[in-house]
Protein backbone atom coordinates (compact mmCIF):
# COMPACT_ATOMS: atom_id res chain seq x y z
CA UNK A 1 0.00 0.00 0.00
CA UNK A 2 1.54 3.35 -0.96
CA UNK A 3 2.08 5.73 1.89
CA UNK A 4 -0.76 8.08 2.58
CA UNK A 5 1.40 11.12 2.24
CA UNK A 6 1.89 10.34 -1.46
CA UNK A 7 -1.77 10.16 -2.43
CA UNK A 8 -3.35 12.84 -4.56
CA UNK A 9 -6.72 14.22 -3.63
CA UNK A 10 -8.69 12.03 -5.98
CA UNK A 11 -7.06 8.88 -4.65
CA UNK A 12 -7.63 10.10 -1.14
CA UNK A 13 -11.29 10.64 -1.82
CA UNK A 14 -11.64 7.25 -3.46
CA UNK A 15 -10.19 5.60 -0.44
CA UNK A 16 -12.39 7.58 1.87
CA UNK A 17 -15.44 6.57 -0.13
CA UNK A 18 -14.47 2.94 0.15
CA UNK A 19 -14.56 3.22 3.91
CA UNK A 20 -10.90 3.75 4.76
CA UNK A 21 -10.74 5.36 8.20
CA UNK A 22 -7.50 7.20 7.66
CA UNK A 23 -8.66 8.71 4.39
CA UNK A 24 -12.00 9.75 5.86
CA UNK A 25 -10.25 11.35 8.80
CA UNK A 26 -8.04 13.29 6.43
CA UNK A 27 -10.92 14.44 4.20
CA UNK A 28 -12.71 15.75 7.29
CA UNK A 29 -9.61 17.77 8.18
CA UNK A 30 -9.49 19.25 4.71
CA UNK A 31 -13.13 20.20 4.98
CA UNK A 32 -12.45 22.30 8.04
CA UNK A 33 -11.16 24.94 5.61
CA UNK A 34 -13.30 24.23 2.55
CA UNK A 35 -11.91 26.95 0.30
CA UNK A 36 -8.42 25.60 0.67
CA UNK A 37 -9.29 22.58 -1.42
CA UNK A 38 -10.53 22.24 -5.00
CA UNK A 39 -14.26 22.55 -5.11
CA UNK A 40 -14.73 19.48 -7.24
CA UNK A 41 -13.91 17.49 -4.12
CA UNK A 42 -16.76 19.14 -2.33
CA UNK A 43 -19.06 18.59 -5.27
CA UNK A 44 -18.36 14.92 -5.54
CA UNK A 45 -19.24 14.64 -1.88
CA UNK A 46 -22.36 16.75 -2.04
CA UNK A 47 -23.64 14.81 -5.04
CA UNK A 48 -23.89 11.72 -2.91
CA UNK A 49 -25.26 13.35 0.21
CA UNK A 50 -28.69 14.44 1.31
CA UNK A 51 -29.96 11.06 2.44
CA UNK A 52 -28.91 10.67 6.05
CA UNK A 53 -30.87 11.60 9.13
CA UNK A 54 -29.05 14.30 11.06
CA UNK A 55 -29.77 14.02 14.77
CA UNK A 56 -28.86 16.93 17.02
CA UNK A 57 -28.43 15.97 20.66
CA UNK A 58 -27.99 18.59 23.31
CA UNK A 59 -28.44 18.69 27.03
CA UNK A 60 -27.50 20.28 30.26
CA UNK A 61 -24.10 19.47 31.74
CA UNK A 62 -24.25 16.40 33.95
CA UNK A 63 -27.30 14.96 32.23
CA UNK A 64 -25.28 11.96 31.08
CA UNK A 65 -25.55 12.92 27.45
CA UNK A 66 -22.33 11.25 26.30
CA UNK A 67 -23.18 7.96 28.00
CA UNK A 68 -26.67 8.15 26.51
CA UNK A 69 -25.22 8.67 23.03
CA UNK A 70 -22.89 5.76 23.54
CA UNK A 71 -25.85 3.51 24.39
CA UNK A 72 -27.87 4.93 21.51
CA UNK A 73 -25.05 4.04 19.13
CA UNK A 74 -25.25 0.43 20.33
CA UNK A 75 -28.97 0.38 19.71
CA UNK A 76 -28.73 1.96 16.26
CA UNK A 77 -25.93 -0.41 15.30
CA UNK A 78 -28.03 -3.39 16.30
CA UNK A 79 -30.56 -2.24 13.74
CA UNK A 80 -27.95 -2.09 11.03
CA UNK A 81 -27.42 1.65 10.85
CA UNK A 82 -24.05 3.24 10.23
CA UNK A 83 -23.51 5.99 12.74
CA UNK A 84 -21.29 9.07 12.64
CA UNK A 85 -20.85 11.36 15.61
CA UNK A 86 -19.68 14.95 15.47
CA UNK A 87 -18.77 15.72 19.07
CA UNK A 88 -18.59 19.45 19.60
CA UNK A 89 -16.48 19.91 22.66
CA UNK A 90 -17.29 22.73 25.00
CA UNK A 91 -13.64 23.33 25.78
CA UNK A 92 -12.54 26.66 27.07
CA UNK A 93 -11.90 29.16 24.30
CA UNK A 94 -9.26 30.97 26.33
CA UNK A 95 -6.10 29.10 25.48
CA UNK A 96 -4.77 28.72 22.00
CA UNK A 97 -5.10 24.97 21.93
CA UNK A 98 -8.05 22.82 22.86
CA UNK A 99 -8.55 19.74 24.99
CA UNK A 100 -11.14 17.45 23.41
CA UNK A 101 -12.39 14.71 25.68
CA UNK A 102 -15.96 14.10 24.60
CA UNK A 103 -15.20 10.93 22.71
CA UNK A 104 -13.86 9.39 25.91
CA UNK A 105 -17.30 8.09 26.85
CA UNK A 106 -17.85 6.65 23.37
CA UNK A 107 -14.51 4.91 23.02
CA UNK A 108 -16.17 1.52 23.40
CA UNK A 109 -17.35 2.03 19.80
CA UNK A 110 -13.98 3.17 18.47
CA UNK A 111 -13.20 -0.14 16.81
CA UNK A 112 -16.64 -0.70 15.30
CA UNK A 113 -16.25 -0.16 11.54
CA UNK A 114 -19.82 1.13 11.39
CA UNK A 115 -19.15 3.99 13.79
CA UNK A 116 -17.10 7.10 13.15
CA UNK A 117 -16.48 9.64 15.92
CA UNK A 118 -14.97 13.01 15.20
CA UNK A 119 -14.32 15.79 17.71
CA UNK A 120 -14.68 19.45 16.87
CA UNK A 121 -13.39 22.18 19.08
CA UNK A 122 -15.83 24.96 19.78
CA UNK A 123 -13.14 27.59 19.90
CA UNK A 124 -12.03 29.63 16.94
CA UNK A 125 -13.60 32.09 14.61
CA UNK A 126 -17.21 33.05 14.76
CA UNK A 127 -19.16 30.69 12.58
CA UNK A 128 -16.13 28.51 12.03
CA UNK A 129 -17.50 25.89 14.32
CA UNK A 130 -20.82 25.66 12.56
CA UNK A 131 -19.20 25.62 9.19
CA UNK A 132 -16.91 22.74 10.08
CA UNK A 133 -19.83 20.80 11.52
CA UNK A 134 -21.96 21.41 8.42
CA UNK A 135 -19.28 20.37 5.95
CA UNK A 136 -18.68 17.27 8.04
CA UNK A 137 -22.36 16.39 7.79
CA UNK A 138 -22.11 16.50 4.00
CA UNK A 139 -19.08 14.22 4.12
CA UNK A 140 -20.52 11.66 6.51
CA UNK A 141 -23.73 11.68 4.50
CA UNK A 142 -21.75 10.97 1.31
CA UNK A 143 -19.73 8.24 3.04
CA UNK A 144 -22.93 6.37 3.79
CA UNK A 145 -23.40 7.03 7.52
CA UNK A 146 -27.19 7.07 7.57
CA UNK A 147 -27.46 8.36 11.14
CA UNK A 148 -25.34 11.42 11.90
CA UNK A 149 -25.36 12.57 15.49
CA UNK A 150 -24.27 16.10 16.35
CA UNK A 151 -23.55 16.51 20.04
CA UNK A 152 -23.38 19.97 21.59
CA UNK A 153 -23.89 21.60 24.97
CA UNK A 154 -26.56 23.70 23.31
CA UNK A 155 -25.48 27.15 24.36
CA UNK A 156 -24.15 29.91 22.16
CA UNK A 157 -25.61 31.07 18.89
CA UNK A 158 -23.51 28.90 16.61
CA UNK A 159 -24.56 25.77 18.47
CA UNK A 160 -28.19 26.74 18.23
CA UNK A 161 -27.68 27.25 14.49
CA UNK A 162 -26.27 23.75 14.15
CA UNK A 163 -29.16 22.29 16.08
CA UNK A 164 -31.60 24.02 13.79
CA UNK A 165 -29.86 22.39 10.87
CA UNK A 166 -30.58 18.92 12.27
CA UNK A 167 -33.52 16.79 11.15
CA UNK A 168 -34.28 15.57 14.60
CA UNK A 169 -33.55 17.51 17.76
CA UNK A 170 -33.15 15.64 21.04
CA UNK A 171 -32.91 17.51 24.33
CA UNK A 172 -31.53 15.57 27.31
CA UNK A 173 -32.34 16.62 30.86
CA UNK A 174 -32.04 15.04 34.26
CA UNK A 175 -34.13 14.96 37.44
CA UNK A 176 -33.97 18.08 39.55
CA UNK A 177 -32.59 20.20 36.76
CA UNK A 178 -35.33 22.84 36.87
CA UNK A 179 -33.08 25.88 36.87
CA UNK A 180 -30.87 24.49 34.19
CA UNK A 181 -33.89 23.77 32.06
CA UNK A 182 -34.93 27.39 32.42
CA UNK A 183 -31.49 28.44 31.30
CA UNK A 184 -31.71 26.24 28.24
CA UNK A 185 -35.05 27.63 27.22
CA UNK A 186 -33.56 30.51 25.35
CA UNK A 187 -31.48 28.05 23.40
CA UNK A 188 -32.69 24.79 22.00
CA UNK A 189 -34.95 23.66 24.82
CA UNK A 190 -38.05 24.92 23.07
CA UNK A 191 -37.40 23.33 19.68
CA UNK A 192 -36.89 19.70 20.68
CA UNK A 193 -38.60 16.91 18.77
CA UNK A 194 -37.78 14.36 21.45
CA UNK A 195 -37.16 15.14 25.12
CA UNK A 196 -35.23 12.65 27.20
CA UNK A 197 -35.30 12.53 30.96
CA UNK A 198 -32.12 10.61 31.72
CA UNK A 199 -31.17 9.15 35.11
CA UNK A 200 -34.82 8.27 35.59
CA UNK A 201 -33.86 6.00 38.48
CA UNK A 202 -33.01 9.05 40.58
CA UNK A 203 -35.23 10.61 43.18
CA UNK A 204 -37.12 13.68 41.98
CA UNK A 205 -37.44 12.02 38.59
CA UNK A 206 -41.24 11.98 38.79
CA UNK A 207 -41.41 15.65 39.63
CA UNK A 208 -39.20 16.64 36.73
CA UNK A 209 -41.08 14.31 34.40
CA UNK A 210 -44.36 15.95 35.29
CA UNK A 211 -42.85 19.38 34.95
CA UNK A 212 -41.65 18.56 31.45
CA UNK A 213 -44.92 16.93 30.50
CA UNK A 214 -46.80 20.02 31.60
CA UNK A 215 -44.45 22.28 29.68
CA UNK A 216 -44.99 20.16 26.58
CA UNK A 217 -48.73 20.14 26.88
CA UNK A 218 -48.84 23.85 27.51
CA UNK A 219 -46.72 24.37 24.41
CA UNK A 220 -43.82 26.04 26.24
CA UNK A 221 -41.43 23.60 24.65
CA UNK A 222 -41.45 21.27 21.69
CA UNK A 223 -42.37 23.88 19.11
CA UNK A 224 -40.21 22.92 16.17
CA UNK A 225 -42.81 21.31 13.94
CA UNK A 226 -46.56 21.62 14.35
CA UNK A 227 -47.25 18.37 12.51
CA UNK A 228 -45.17 16.32 14.98
CA UNK A 229 -46.25 15.62 18.50
CA UNK A 230 -43.02 15.96 20.53
CA UNK A 231 -42.20 12.98 22.74
CA UNK A 232 -40.97 12.73 26.27
CA UNK A 233 -38.97 9.61 27.14
CA UNK A 234 -37.42 8.28 30.30
CA UNK A 235 -34.00 6.61 30.14
CA UNK A 236 -31.23 5.41 32.40
CA UNK A 237 -28.19 5.46 30.17
CA UNK A 238 -25.90 3.90 32.71
CA UNK A 239 -28.20 0.89 33.10
CA UNK A 240 -29.14 0.86 29.42
CA UNK A 241 -32.84 1.41 30.11
CA UNK A 242 -35.17 3.11 27.64
CA UNK A 243 -32.53 3.34 24.94
CA UNK A 244 -34.31 1.16 22.40
CA UNK A 245 -37.43 3.31 22.81
CA UNK A 246 -35.32 6.34 22.03
CA UNK A 247 -33.98 4.68 18.89
CA UNK A 248 -37.53 3.81 17.87
CA UNK A 249 -38.68 7.40 18.37
CA UNK A 250 -35.78 8.63 16.28
CA UNK A 251 -36.85 6.34 13.47
CA UNK A 252 -40.51 7.32 13.89
CA UNK A 253 -39.52 10.94 13.52
CA UNK A 254 -37.51 10.05 10.43
CA UNK A 255 -40.51 8.32 8.84
CA UNK A 256 -42.68 11.27 9.76
CA UNK A 257 -40.49 13.97 8.21
CA UNK A 258 -39.87 11.85 5.15
CA UNK A 259 -43.61 11.75 4.64
CA UNK A 260 -44.26 15.43 5.27
CA UNK A 261 -41.35 16.62 3.13
CA UNK A 262 -39.71 18.29 6.09
CA UNK A 263 -36.72 16.02 5.63
CA UNK A 264 -35.70 17.63 2.39
CA UNK A 265 -36.59 21.11 3.64
CA UNK A 266 -34.06 20.62 6.41
CA UNK A 267 -31.38 19.54 3.94
CA UNK A 268 -32.03 22.73 2.00
CA UNK A 269 -31.95 24.96 5.04
CA UNK A 270 -28.79 23.32 6.28
CA UNK A 271 -27.11 23.97 2.95
CA UNK A 272 -28.37 27.54 2.84
CA UNK A 273 -26.80 28.05 6.22
CA UNK A 274 -23.58 26.52 4.97
CA UNK A 275 -23.50 28.93 2.06
CA UNK A 276 -23.98 31.89 4.33
CA UNK A 277 -21.38 30.73 6.83
CA UNK A 278 -18.86 30.13 4.07
CA UNK A 279 -19.29 33.67 2.84
CA UNK A 280 -19.11 35.04 6.35
CA UNK A 281 -15.96 33.22 7.16
CA UNK A 282 -14.23 34.07 3.93
CA UNK A 283 -15.12 37.67 4.47
CA UNK A 284 -13.99 37.79 8.08
CA UNK A 285 -10.72 36.11 7.33
CA UNK A 286 -9.94 38.43 4.47
CA UNK A 287 -10.88 41.51 6.41
CA UNK A 288 -8.55 40.37 9.14
CA UNK A 289 -5.79 39.71 6.69
CA UNK A 290 -6.08 43.06 4.95
CA UNK A 291 -6.25 44.95 8.20
CA UNK A 292 -3.33 43.00 9.59
CA UNK A 293 -1.35 44.07 6.54
CA UNK A 294 -1.96 47.76 7.07
CA UNK A 295 -1.35 48.04 10.78
CA UNK A 296 1.03 50.98 10.34
CA UNK A 297 -1.49 52.97 8.42
CA UNK A 298 -4.28 52.19 10.89
CA UNK A 299 -2.04 53.18 13.78
CA UNK A 300 -1.22 56.44 12.10
CA UNK A 301 -4.89 57.26 11.57
CA UNK A 302 -5.75 56.29 15.11
CA UNK A 303 -2.92 58.29 16.59
CA UNK A 304 -4.01 61.34 14.72
CA UNK A 305 -7.63 61.32 15.86
CA UNK A 306 -8.44 64.05 13.40
CA UNK A 307 -11.26 62.93 11.10
CA UNK A 308 -11.07 59.44 12.51
CA UNK A 309 -14.57 58.42 11.46
CA UNK A 310 -14.25 59.67 7.91
CA UNK A 311 -10.91 57.93 7.57
CA UNK A 312 -12.24 54.69 9.05
CA UNK A 313 -15.15 54.56 6.67
CA UNK A 314 -12.93 55.33 3.70
CA UNK A 315 -10.59 52.51 4.63
CA UNK A 316 -13.51 50.16 5.14
CA UNK A 317 -14.91 50.95 1.72
CA UNK A 318 -11.54 50.38 0.12
CA UNK A 319 -11.18 47.06 1.87
CA UNK A 320 -14.60 46.02 0.63
CA UNK A 321 -13.70 46.79 -2.94
CA UNK A 322 -10.42 44.99 -2.55
CA UNK A 323 -12.30 41.91 -1.41
CA UNK A 324 -14.72 42.41 -4.26
CA UNK A 325 -11.87 42.07 -6.72
CA UNK A 326 -10.62 38.97 -5.02
CA UNK A 327 -10.15 36.01 -7.25
CA UNK A 328 -11.57 33.24 -5.20
CA UNK A 329 -10.42 30.09 -6.92
Amino acid sequence: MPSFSQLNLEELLNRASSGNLRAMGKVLSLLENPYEIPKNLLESLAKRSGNSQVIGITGIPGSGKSTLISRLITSLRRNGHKVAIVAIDPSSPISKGALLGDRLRMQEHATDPGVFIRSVSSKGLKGGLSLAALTMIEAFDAFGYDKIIIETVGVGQSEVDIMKAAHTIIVVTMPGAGDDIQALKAGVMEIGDIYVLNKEDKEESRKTYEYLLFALEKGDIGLSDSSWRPRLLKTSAIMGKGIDDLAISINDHYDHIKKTGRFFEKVISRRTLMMKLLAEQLLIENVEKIYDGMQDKLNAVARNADKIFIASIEIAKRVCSEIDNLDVN
Partner: protein
Amino acid sequence: MLSPQYTKEKQYKVLVAKLGIDGHDRGAKVIARALRDFGFDVIYTGIRQTPEQIISAALQEDVDVIGISILSGSHIYHMKKLMEGLRSLGADDIPVVIGGTIPIIDVEELRRIGIREVFLPGESLRRIADVVRELAKEKREKESYRG
Protein backbone atom coordinates in the same frame (compact mmCIF):
# COMPACT_ATOMS: atom_id res chain seq x y z
CA MET B 1 -2.99 40.07 -5.24
CA LEU B 2 -4.59 38.65 -2.15
CA SER B 3 -4.76 34.96 -1.72
CA PRO B 4 -8.08 33.65 -0.44
CA GLN B 5 -6.19 31.18 1.71
CA TYR B 6 -5.91 33.24 4.80
CA THR B 7 -2.95 31.40 6.26
CA LYS B 8 -3.69 30.83 9.89
CA GLU B 9 -1.01 29.15 11.90
CA LYS B 10 -1.58 25.46 11.52
CA GLN B 11 -3.06 23.78 14.53
CA TYR B 12 -1.38 20.48 15.28
CA LYS B 13 -3.50 17.72 16.69
CA VAL B 14 -2.23 15.17 19.20
CA LEU B 15 -3.86 12.09 20.69
CA VAL B 16 -3.01 11.46 24.34
CA ALA B 17 -4.00 7.97 25.39
CA LYS B 18 -3.60 5.56 28.27
CA LEU B 19 -2.74 2.18 26.79
CA GLY B 20 -3.35 -0.89 28.93
CA ILE B 21 -5.39 -1.17 32.10
CA ASP B 22 -3.54 0.87 34.71
CA GLY B 23 -5.49 3.82 36.06
CA HIS B 24 -2.59 6.20 36.70
CA ASP B 25 -3.83 9.10 34.66
CA ARG B 26 -2.03 11.90 36.47
CA GLY B 27 0.77 12.08 33.93
CA ALA B 28 -1.48 11.76 30.89
CA LYS B 29 -3.73 14.54 32.12
CA VAL B 30 -0.84 16.84 32.97
CA ILE B 31 0.64 16.25 29.50
CA ALA B 32 -2.73 16.78 27.81
CA ARG B 33 -3.19 20.07 29.57
CA ALA B 34 0.37 21.20 28.99
CA LEU B 35 0.16 20.44 25.28
CA ARG B 36 -3.07 22.40 25.08
CA ASP B 37 -1.37 25.33 26.78
CA PHE B 38 1.47 25.04 24.28
CA GLY B 39 -1.12 25.49 21.52
CA PHE B 40 -2.01 21.96 20.41
CA ASP B 41 -5.44 20.50 19.88
CA VAL B 42 -5.42 17.50 22.16
CA ILE B 43 -7.73 14.49 21.98
CA TYR B 44 -7.82 12.61 25.28
CA THR B 45 -9.39 9.17 25.24
CA GLY B 46 -9.22 8.26 28.93
CA ILE B 47 -7.95 5.14 30.70
CA ARG B 48 -8.06 1.43 29.81
CA GLN B 49 -7.61 1.74 26.06
CA THR B 50 -6.64 -1.09 23.73
CA PRO B 51 -4.24 -0.58 20.80
CA GLU B 52 -7.19 -0.98 18.41
CA GLN B 53 -9.21 1.76 20.13
CA ILE B 54 -6.25 4.11 20.07
CA ILE B 55 -5.54 3.50 16.39
CA SER B 56 -9.18 4.09 15.43
CA ALA B 57 -9.29 7.31 17.42
CA ALA B 58 -6.05 8.50 15.85
CA LEU B 59 -7.31 7.85 12.32
CA GLN B 60 -10.81 9.21 12.83
CA GLU B 61 -9.45 12.38 14.41
CA ASP B 62 -6.60 12.63 11.90
CA VAL B 63 -3.99 13.40 14.52
CA ASP B 64 -0.40 14.39 13.78
CA VAL B 65 1.17 12.60 16.74
CA ILE B 66 0.11 9.77 19.06
CA GLY B 67 1.27 10.12 22.67
CA ILE B 68 0.97 7.06 24.90
CA SER B 69 1.21 6.89 28.69
CA ILE B 70 1.78 3.55 30.44
CA LEU B 71 2.62 2.92 34.08
CA SER B 72 1.85 -0.76 34.31
CA GLY B 73 5.14 -2.20 33.18
CA SER B 74 3.46 -3.82 30.17
CA HIS B 75 4.71 -1.23 27.67
CA ILE B 76 6.67 -3.54 25.37
CA TYR B 77 3.80 -5.97 24.94
CA HIS B 78 1.22 -3.25 24.22
CA MET B 79 3.43 -1.02 22.11
CA LYS B 80 4.34 -3.89 19.82
CA LYS B 81 0.65 -4.45 19.19
CA LEU B 82 0.04 -0.76 18.60
CA MET B 83 2.88 -0.42 16.13
CA GLU B 84 1.90 -3.60 14.29
CA GLY B 85 -1.63 -2.27 14.02
CA LEU B 86 -0.51 1.06 12.60
CA ARG B 87 1.76 -0.65 10.11
CA SER B 88 -0.94 -3.00 8.89
CA LEU B 89 -3.13 0.01 8.12
CA GLY B 90 -0.34 1.90 6.37
CA ALA B 91 -0.52 4.47 9.13
CA ASP B 92 2.95 4.06 10.56
CA ASP B 93 3.93 7.50 9.30
CA ILE B 94 2.00 8.90 12.27
CA PRO B 95 4.74 9.42 14.84
CA VAL B 96 4.26 7.68 18.21
CA VAL B 97 5.85 8.80 21.47
CA ILE B 98 5.58 7.22 24.92
CA GLY B 99 6.05 8.21 28.55
CA GLY B 100 5.65 6.48 31.90
CA THR B 101 7.54 4.19 34.24
CA ILE B 102 9.87 2.73 31.67
CA PRO B 103 13.19 1.18 32.66
CA ILE B 104 16.05 2.60 30.65
CA ILE B 105 16.94 -0.87 29.44
CA ASP B 106 13.65 -0.94 27.53
CA VAL B 107 14.28 2.28 25.62
CA GLU B 108 16.30 0.67 22.86
CA GLU B 109 13.69 -2.00 22.30
CA LEU B 110 10.95 0.62 22.08
CA ARG B 111 13.01 2.62 19.59
CA ARG B 112 13.63 -0.49 17.57
CA ILE B 113 9.91 -1.16 17.13
CA GLY B 114 9.46 2.37 15.81
CA ILE B 115 8.64 4.58 18.79
CA ARG B 116 10.02 8.00 17.90
CA GLU B 117 10.68 9.22 21.44
CA VAL B 118 10.60 7.72 24.92
CA PHE B 119 10.05 10.23 27.72
CA LEU B 120 11.35 8.98 31.05
CA PRO B 121 9.87 10.18 34.36
CA GLY B 122 10.89 13.75 35.17
CA GLU B 123 10.99 14.98 31.57
CA SER B 124 10.23 18.69 31.23
CA LEU B 125 6.89 19.66 29.76
CA ARG B 126 8.51 22.16 27.43
CA ARG B 127 10.80 19.57 25.93
CA ILE B 128 7.89 17.19 25.42
CA ALA B 129 5.96 19.95 23.62
CA ASP B 130 9.01 20.80 21.48
CA VAL B 131 9.56 17.21 20.43
CA VAL B 132 5.87 16.69 19.66
CA ARG B 133 5.78 19.88 17.58
CA GLU B 134 8.82 18.84 15.57
CA LEU B 135 7.34 15.41 14.87
CA ALA B 136 3.98 16.92 13.90
CA LYS B 137 5.65 19.38 11.57
CA GLU B 138 7.72 16.68 9.94
CA LYS B 139 4.62 14.57 9.34
CA ARG B 140 2.61 17.39 7.85
CA GLU B 141 5.42 18.44 5.56
CA LYS B 142 5.42 15.00 3.99
CA GLU B 143 1.75 15.24 3.09
CA SER B 144 1.20 16.28 -0.49
CA TYR B 145 -2.56 16.20 -0.98
CA ARG B 146 -3.08 19.56 0.63
CA GLY B 147 -4.24 21.46 -2.52
